[in-house]
Structure formats: structure tokens, C-alpha cells
């Protein structure tokens, strides 16, 4: 059991001047893929950091599994927007750090890491340093670093935000493949509405700051009903009317949020 639950969570920064989250209630089921979209600064990253244990709620509770989150840990692997690979470690060293921290024996570790390298298609790059890889390759290493821990929960904060459009598409397709082969509970933050609809089972829309939940859109039922899985290419899915419809719905909902902003 590895659900995530936000229980009436509020979060303020800097002696209460900045209220980032206001009374958020949200439950992500075991093995569910939930994406959060919302205006910039609405508190998406804050949600993720609460679940990761980098921050703690001002009031309310965040539960993973059935335990309250008290510190970061390898049961909740994070994939950061800027990859956050250690530049001084090779691909293999980056991936195996978490396993070393668990004191896994060298031989077993090697096997696990090689499996992961295989999975992300980086054979031949085991000894490369991050700066020798393209952005897409780096992000694949970051994902492998998270996956290899076999975590209950994956937390991804705009993992493809730093990639160029074409690479991003490839990564999105790969993530879908991975998620189907090996499903996890995922909390996924993004600005891309298309991305959210393409990847997630449900999409949560947040209001402007202080962030509240505005609406949760169920994608899974439509995806299954319309058989999106038939298409392996994102642009084919994106041409489907059911997809366009969902996307436009979420867009509209977000635009309402936007008009009030001082942008």
C-alpha cells in the first residue's frame, strides 16, 4: 500500500507572510498516476516537497502509505526538473548511490544497476559523466536513479521542463512505456496541459496562490474508453478528438485562473 494523502494541508513561508497552500485535501491511490497543473507560483512544487519530506505542513498532515512524512527517504524517490545528477559521478555511480546507502552487496548492486541502464537504453554510457550526455539522456539517468530504488512512490517536478520540445516528446513516450511496464504511485507536476493529459490517470487543477484544489479531471476512464493505448506516438494521440476536448477543458479552467493575475 503506497497511497499519498494530503489531509487539510496548509503551508506558509517566512513567518506566515506567504501562504503557499490553503487547506488542500488530496488522495492519490496506490499505483495511480496523478498530475498537478496550475498557474506559476500556485504551490505545486510545495505539494511535492511536502510529500518528499523536504518541507513540513504548517497545519494538516501528509501521509505516505499510512505513515506521516517526517524526513526524505528512498521510499519516495524524487525526479527533479534540473535533473540534479551529481556532476562528479558517472552514470553508474549516480544510479548506484541509493543502493550503496542501503548497504546492498556489490554484486547484487551491479546487477540492479545494469538492469536499470538497460531499461533506459544507456548501454555504453555507463562511465560517462553527466556533462557528456544530452539533456534527455541526463533526465533518463535521473529517472533510473529513482526507479532503481524500487520506491513505493515517485515524485516528479516538471521533469521534462528543461528539455527541448522534441526530446521532451521522446521522454514522455518513454515514461508512458515505463509506467505501463512497472506501475508506481506517481505525483507528477507540470505546466504542460498536453503532457498532463497524455500521461496521467487524473489531473488536478490548482487555483492561484494560495493554492487550493479547484478541480480534478478523470482522464483514465476516457483514455480506456477511447483506446488511446492503441497509438504509441504522442502526436497521434494528440490528434484524437477526445484528447483535444479534454485538453481544451483544462485550458479553459486554467485561463480563468490566469486572467486575474498581474501578468
Amino acid at each position, binding site marked *: 500500500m503506497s497511497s499519498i494523502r494530503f489531509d487539510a494541508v496548509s503551508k506558509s513561508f517566512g513567518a506566515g507572510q506567504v501562504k503557499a497552500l490553503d487547506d488542500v485535501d488530496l488522495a492519490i491511490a496506490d499505483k495511480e498516476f496523478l498530475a498537478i497543473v496550475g498557474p506559476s507560483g500556485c504551490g505545486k512544487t510545495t505539494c511535492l516537497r511536502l510529500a518528499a519530506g523536504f518541507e513540513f505542513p504548517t497545519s494538516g498532515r501528509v501521509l505516505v502509505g499510512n505513515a506521516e512524512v517526517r*524526513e526524505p527517504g528512498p521510499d519516495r524517490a524524487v525526479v*527533479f526538473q534540473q535533473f540534479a545528477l*551529481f*556532476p*562528479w559521478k558517472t552514470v553508474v555511480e549516480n544510479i548506484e*548511490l541509493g543502493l550503496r546507502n542501503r548497504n546492498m552487496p556489490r554484486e547484487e548492486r551491479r546487477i540492479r544497476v545494469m538492469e536499470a541502464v538497460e531499461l533506459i537504453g544507456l548501454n555504453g554510457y555507463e562511465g560517462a559523466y553527466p556533462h*557528456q550526455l544530452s539533456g534527455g539522456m541526463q533526465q533518463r539517468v535521473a529517472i533510473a536513479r529513482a526507479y532503481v530504488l524500487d520506491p513505493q512512490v515517485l515524485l516528479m517536478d516538471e521533469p521534462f521542463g528543461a528539455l527541448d520540445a522534441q526530446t521532451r516528446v521522446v521522454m514522455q513516450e518513454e515514461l508512458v512505456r515505463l509506467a505501463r511496464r512497472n506501475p508506481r504511485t506517481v505525483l507528477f507536476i507540470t505546466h504542460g496541459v498536453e503532457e498532463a493529459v497524455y500521461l496521467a490517470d487524473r489531473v488536478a487543477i490548482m487555483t492561484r496562490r494560495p493554492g487550493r484544489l479547484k478541480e480534478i479531471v478523470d482522464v483514465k476512464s476516457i483514455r480506456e474508453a477511447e483506446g488511446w493505448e492503441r497509438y504509441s506516438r504522442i502526436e497521434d494521440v494528440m490528434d484524437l478528438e477526445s484528447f483535444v476536448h479534454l485538453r481544451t477543458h483544462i485550458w479553459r479552467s486554467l485561463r480563468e485562473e490566469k486572467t486575474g493575475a498581474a501578468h
Partner: protein
Amino acid sequence: MTGALDPARRMVLGLAGLVGFFGLWALVAASGLVGNAFLPGPLEVAERLVTLLHTSFAGGTLPQHLASSLQRFSAGYLLAAAVGVPLGLLMGRFRLLDDIVSPLFDALRFIAPIAWVPFAALWFGTGFGGPVLIIFSGAFPPCLLNAYRGARQVDPRYIEAAEMLGTPTHRLILEVLLPAATPSIVAGLRIGAGLGWQSLVGAELIVASTGVGYMMVQAQSGVATATVMVGMAAIGLVGVLIDIALRALEARIHNRLERA
């Protein structure tokens, strides 16, 4: 800003600068505007330098003086690096330690290394301890400060990534903070080497039996200005060499850690 020059052109211009500098010096010295005791010409200084390579002055030849200076320097410098870098990293990781050490450090850094001369003599005498303390007090602050800054400025994402991977503290310091702060640490080691080397002359005020600083003081009292300037040149040259060595190290580390 006007773009990089190609190496050959750079070299020529650099040489032109040096030639201009020495030319001006020679011209002023030869013009007789300042007496020879005040400003001997570069040739005379060079000649004196060659002489001092094999003849003894103030108890040793120039290489001998340099050797004993360098020996003292390395001891004080290595000590400064060995204490400063780990302490700086720990301060970067542990707030409390930072809060305790920083105020002391802020107060002490305005005090010149040579101001420690009397205490150095009273505490450690003149064998090895005294001068080492003085060089240490020159080289220590940049070593500490840069390690500390480097550790503080480590992108928090790296630390968060490590925490998320369940990394224990000792490994976090050795495998995350240390490599991430390395460029800053090396820069600190470079500055520290410069300051430590500069403090040496101060150190050699109390250990008067050998060393380039001692040689200069003795030459000064004998109005051997050319010898004084040989001392300056030797100190300058060795300083440049130390800096070049550390720069090479810096460049190598930068290459290795260069991010995409």
C-alpha cells in the same frame, strides 16, 4: 569582452608588457634620477641574482634561503589547508558550528599575520612552530572561507537528491559537499597560498637565521639594494610558480567537473 586573442598574439603582447616594464625600470635606473642605492637597474639585479645562486650571503646561497623558506611555507600551508578545508565543510553542513565559528573568525581576519609575530614567539618560539603559526594565520582564512562558501553554495538540489537517496552524513560530506565545493576550495587554496607566501617575510623576521625574508632584511641594513630586489624577485617568481601550479590543478578539476 572584445573576444579571445589567439595564444601567439597573447604571448607577444605579454612579452611586450614585460619588456616595457623592465625597459622603463632600466631607463629610470640609468637616467641617474634616482641613485643606485635606491634603484639598481634590472641588469645589476640579474647579475646579483646569478651571483647569489652560488655565493653565500647572510648564511646561505639564494637557493638555500629559498629552500628553507619553502620548507616553512609548506608546513604552515599544509596545516592551514588540513584544518581549514574540513572545518569549512563542516561549518557549511552544520548550522550550529557555523554560528559558533563565524563571529570569532570575523573578528580575527582583520589582524595581520605579522601581528601574530610576538605571540608566535612567546608560544612556539622560533624553531618551527612560530613561523608556521604566522604562515598558517595568513593561509587559513581563505582555506576555511572558501570551503565554507563552497559548501553553502552547493545547489540545494544536490543535497536534497542525496537526502532523498538516504545518504548518511559522512557520505554526504565526502561525496556531495566536497566534490561540489571543490572549485571553490581550490580557489581558496590558491588565495591561501598567495597570502601564506606573503606572510613568510613576516615569519622570517623572527627566525632570522635563514630564509629569503631574512636575506632581504640583512641586505637592507647593508644597503645592498640589488640584493633586496633579488629577494623581491625571488619571492615574486616563486609566488608565480606556486600560483601556476595551483592554477593547473584548478583547470584540471574544472575540466573534470565541467557541467553541460
